Each structure stands twice: as structure tokens, then as C-alpha cells.
């Protein structure tokens, strides 16, 4: 007989893999890069999270996978899109949230949510990944600045550059050319953040943006981007303590809801056998 029920959420994004294990509250969360390995080895990520939580796989009542790689998690009992999961995760942290902007590695999503954390509308960038986290990575690399420094460095700028290209490759060339002409790195980074915020705003404003506005994903760790985004949106922006795990958190919470609903309705719970194996996709 189990006394405590555990729920796991695993979010395999294009760049980062996240996992959360919770019962009444979060008991373990892990974040790591999605290499070719993680895409295939969701079991390793799960093992790591289990070790951290110091529980066995058998004690997990329900597992939900999400994110770009959600279909590559063979042991997940159910999969939901990251849109549904972010909405659920955010409402548990910010009960007044109405708009969520997730700035991920290769895509950006804006989600409108109701008070229960259900999605009411959403938009996503399509076809082109300019404006996502990858854009900043490329620019940071061009400028020789480490990714975790770009935000703070850009805040030192008094005269942000104008970056006119939207395409990542051309913007990279534009930045390289301006750098060669002696433009300060902080100005270039501030310009890049403004251009990025502009692109995000154009997409987000297709929805009716209402406060509280929460930003999640890797982009939420960049203070320069948040400042530019807040200014252009004309709204205050709130950020979760750990903005990377809200998708995995939402996934685990959705799992808990499914289990509770099944208990209430007295319906059997369909779960997979608890076997951790790597899958063969290559």
C-alpha cells in the first residue's frame, strides 16, 4: 500500500530537458541540455530525477511527458503539449496569471489562460526560429559573450543599436559588421534584445495581452530581454523562480489531476508498466 502518491512531469524541449517530481509539492526538479542522447534517453533523465527525489520508479503514480520530444518518452502514461502544461504550471505559481509568454530554444508561444489554468487561446511562431533563444545564442557566440552574461551586459547600454534584420543569419552578419566598426558590445546586445522583443510583441499582440503577464523558458533568465519586452508590451512582467521547469511542473500537475479525477469517478487508471528503457529511434 502506498501512502504518498508521486507524479512526474518530463519536458523534453528542443534545447533543454526538464523533469519535475511532486507529491503535494515539488520534491525534485532537474534541468539539463537536450543532446542527441537525451532525445533518445528520456529514461536517463527520469533516473536522475528519481535519484534526486530518493524514490523508486515504482512509486510514481503517473507520468506525463511534454515538449518537442514528448513522443520519445516510452514510459509516459500520457502526453500533453507544452502549451497546455505551461498554462497549468503557471496558474499553480501565479493564480492571477492571464498571459504566459514562453521563450524557448527554438520557438516562442503566447498563451491566454483562465483562472483554472486552462488555455483559452494561443499563438506560436511558425516555420522560422528567429526570435527564439537560439537567436540569442548565435549572437552571443558572434560577440564572444557567454549566454548568461548577455542580459546584464545589455543593461549597461545608453545607446542601443538598431538591428534591422530579422533573419538570424543576416542579423549575425549585421552585428559582426557593427562590431568591426567599433560599436560597444553592450549597445549591440541592447539592440538585439529590442529587435527580439519587437518580434515577440508582434506575435504576442495577436492575442489580447492581459496582466498578470508571466514569462517562462530560457528567455526569462535574460534580464535585458525582459526589460525590452516589458517596455514594448507596456505591461509588467513576472518571472517564476525557476522559469525553465513550468512545463514539466504543469505536466506533473496534469498527471495528478488525472489520478484524482479517476479516484473521484471511481474509474480505473490506465498506466504503463514501470520499466525504464531507452527507445530506438535512430
Amino acid at each position: 500500500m502506498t501512502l504518498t502518491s508521486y507524479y512526474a512531469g518530463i519536458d523534453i524541449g528542443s534545447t533543454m530537458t526538464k523533469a519535475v517530481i511532486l507529491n503535494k509539492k515539488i520534491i525534485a526538479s532537474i534541468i539539463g541540455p537536450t543532446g542527441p542522447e537525451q532525445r533518445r534517453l528520456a529514461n536517463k533523465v527520469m533516473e536522475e530525477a528519481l535519484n534526486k527525489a530518493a524514490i523508486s520508479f515504482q512509486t510514481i503514480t503517473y507520468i506525463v511527458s511534454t515538449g518537442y520530444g514528448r513522443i520519445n518518452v516510452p514510459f509516459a502514461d500520457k502526453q500533453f503539449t507544452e502549451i497546455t502544461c505551461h498554462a497549468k504550471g503557471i496558474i499553480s505559481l501565479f493564480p492571477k496569471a492571464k498571459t504566459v509568454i514562453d521563450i524557448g530554444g527554438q520557438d516562442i508561444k503566447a498563451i491566454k489562460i483562465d483562472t483554472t489554468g486552462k488555455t483559452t487561446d494561443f499563438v506560436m511562431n511558425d516555420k522560422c526560429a528567429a526570435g527564439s533563444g537560439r537567436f540569442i545564442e548565435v549572437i552571443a557566440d558572434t560577440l564572444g559573450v557567454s549566454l548568461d552574461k548577455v542580459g546584464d551586459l545589455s543593461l549597461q547600454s545608453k545607446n542601443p543599436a538598431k538591428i534591422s534584420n530579422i533573419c538570424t543569419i543576416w542579423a549575425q552578419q549585421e552585428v559582426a559588421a557593427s562590431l568591426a566598426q567599433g560599436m560597444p558590445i553592450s549597445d549591440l546586445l541592447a539592440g538585439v534584445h529590442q529587435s527580439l522583443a519587437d518580434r515577440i510583441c508582434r506575435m504576442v499582440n495577436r492575442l489580447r495581452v492581459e496582466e498578470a503577464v508571466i514569462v517562462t523558458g530560457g528567455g526569462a533568465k535574460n534580464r535585458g530581454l525582459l526589460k525590452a519586452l516589458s517596455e514594448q508590451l507596456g505591461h509588467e512582467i513576472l518571472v517564476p523562480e525557476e522559469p525553465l521547469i513550468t512545463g514539466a511542473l504543469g505536466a506533473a500537475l496534469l498527471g495528478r489531476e488525472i489520478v484524482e479525477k479517476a479516484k473521484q469517478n471511481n474509474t480505473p487508471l490506465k498506466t504503463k508498466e514501470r520499466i525504464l528503457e531507452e527507445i530506438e529511434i535512430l
Partner: protein
Amino acid sequence: MSDKQSNIFNTVENYYKDYGLRAKELKKEGKKIIGYICSFVPLEIISASGCIPFRVRGNIHEPITKGDTLLETIVCPYYRSCFDLSVKQTYDFLSGMVIPHGCDSMVRSYSAWSYSLPYSYFHFINIPTVCGESSSEFFDAELNTFRRSLEKFAGKAITNDDLARTIRIYNENRDKVRALYEFRKADPPRISGTELTMALTVGSSLPIGEFNTLLDQFLAEIGRRKKSPLKKGPRIFIDGACLDNIELIKLVEELGGNVVADTICNGARDYFPKTDVGGDPIDALAHRYLDKINCPKTYRENKTGTFEGDIASRFNDIGAYAKEFKVDGAILYVYKYCDPFGFEVPARKAYYQSIHVPLLHLEDVYSAGTISQLRTRIQAFLEMIG
């Protein structure tokens, strides 16, 4: 599954995969096959001439290569794909090609088709962009020109009796398609969207008589079905242009949605309106093709003076289908660079809001390469409305 069932489903799948298979056989028998594009070509006139109309189809799995050396990329990818396959000799069994003024791309590229392809017959049909008395008169004359041009090519007079006969056969065909749609009303529907759109896509590659026989068998088989091929799920409406590759519909159904109605060109837009019988056949055809086909290419005057009134009159067919087929949500699927639909997106969005049907707007490039991106959007939409 009984053997018979697998037979008719296999036939449809074979014709779908090897699109033009039957047309090639008919060509060998000496028949003249006339290619066309768009729902505005009056097929009744082609069939009355003794030629066989054949809807030219694109292929989302085939990258557009040779076609792009002859057409600019401002043309929508669906149309470019149709052209690309044609210049790659996919449809060399055709004897001719008819292109209507279905959109600006069709007008501007008409000459490219006629220069680049080895067919012996080409004809352009000028479709008025507005509906009104003068348009009807003009379109009558235009259809008579088409009739004479086909008579010359086929070496056979097209009499009013010939037209009355083909009008009757095409109306029968539309009744059968409507009957097929009736099976979508059950929950879950007795026929999947994938099956239905595949069958209709295949039909446009067959002579109308054979299409009708195929529909009879298909209807009988679906009628005998004890159980739906789908599980209960959100009932989805597909709004858009020609969806001649079933991948999108298949994806929606894989993700648990049931596609139950549409406005697409190889669906309700084309198959629901019937031609009036009894009067002058050319008048009746002009009326059907110009007034009854509800396509964004046609400008319809706003008689109400308000935006709300305008969208209500332009899109009331959507509202009617949404009610009739008990739709839970709609997907507006628009090809990039499709001007007629592109211009209408904001008005269509407003209309869906006014009838309280949740909408997912997808813009796509007519390529199988975008399927995984579409997957996340569609799945999230189904999670949202489910």
C-alpha cells in the same frame, strides 16, 4: 473487415497513391483527358464534349524544383506544386489544360502552362470577380466560348441535350457526396475525414460515371459499417482552399479530433451546390458556378452596411455547417501567399468569434516538412477545446 470493404477501400487508396492511374488507361483507349485546376471549371461542359475532366493535384512530399525555374515564389505553394508536377511530366497523359480565373496566380501563370507543357489544347476561362446582372451575362458568353472551343477540339457538337444530361449526372454525384457527409453526423462519425477526403480527391481523377459507381459502393460499404473507425473526440471543421493531400486531416484524426465538415474546394465548397435543371443549361451552369460557389475570390457586395452584417452574409454557410454537423472547433488552414484566403483571414476570424466556434488558424507551405510543427498546434488546440 469484409473482403468487399477492403476492396473498395483498397481501390480508393490505390487511385489516391497512383493518382491518374485510371486516366492513363483511358488515354490508351483513345480518350481525351482534359486537366483542370480549381472549382470554377464547369466540368459538365467538358464531359458533354466526350472528353474526361481530370483535376490536377499537387504533392506535399515532392519538393518544388523545376516549377520554380518557371514560376516566381510569390505564387502559392499549392499551385506551384501542381505546376511543378506537370512540368516534371507527371500528367503527360493529358490532352489539354483548362485554367479559370480562380485567383491572380492562375491568371498570371496561364501563359507559363501553355508554353511549358506539351498538351494540344489550352483554354482560359474568365470568371467575373463580382456577382451581378452584368457578370451573369458576361459569364454566359464566356461559357459559350468555352463550349465552342471544346467542340472544335473534340470534333463534336455539344447540344443542350448533352449538357442537360451531364448536368443531371453531376447533380447525382453531388447528391451522393451529400449522402456521404450525412455519415459524418453520427458521434463518432461513421466515416473518417481521411476516408472521405481521400475518396473525393480520387473521384476528381475519374470519369464522372465511374466516380458515381465508386461512391455507390463506398456508400453501401459505409452503410454496412457497425462501428465508427474513430473514437469520440472534438468535432472539427476544416476551412480552407484545396486540400488534395490528406495529411492534415489524418493528423487531426491521429491526435483524437474527428473531422466532420469542411468548406474545402475538394469538399463542400465544390460538391454541395447543385445546378438548376429545366431552363437553359448554360444559364444554369453560369448561375451555379458564379453565384453558388462560395469562394473568397468572389467579391460579394455588403448590403447591410455593417461589418457584422457583412461577415454574416459572406460566411453564413460556415455557420450553417457548424450547426448541422455539430462542430466543436474549426481549423482555418491557409497556404502561404494565397491571396484570396489571406485577405479574408481577419474577417473569417471575426465570424468564428461571432458564432462562438473556437478557431485555430494555420498558415502552411504545402510541404510534408511542416507536419511536426502543425502537430503541436493541433494537439494544443484539441487539448484546449476537449
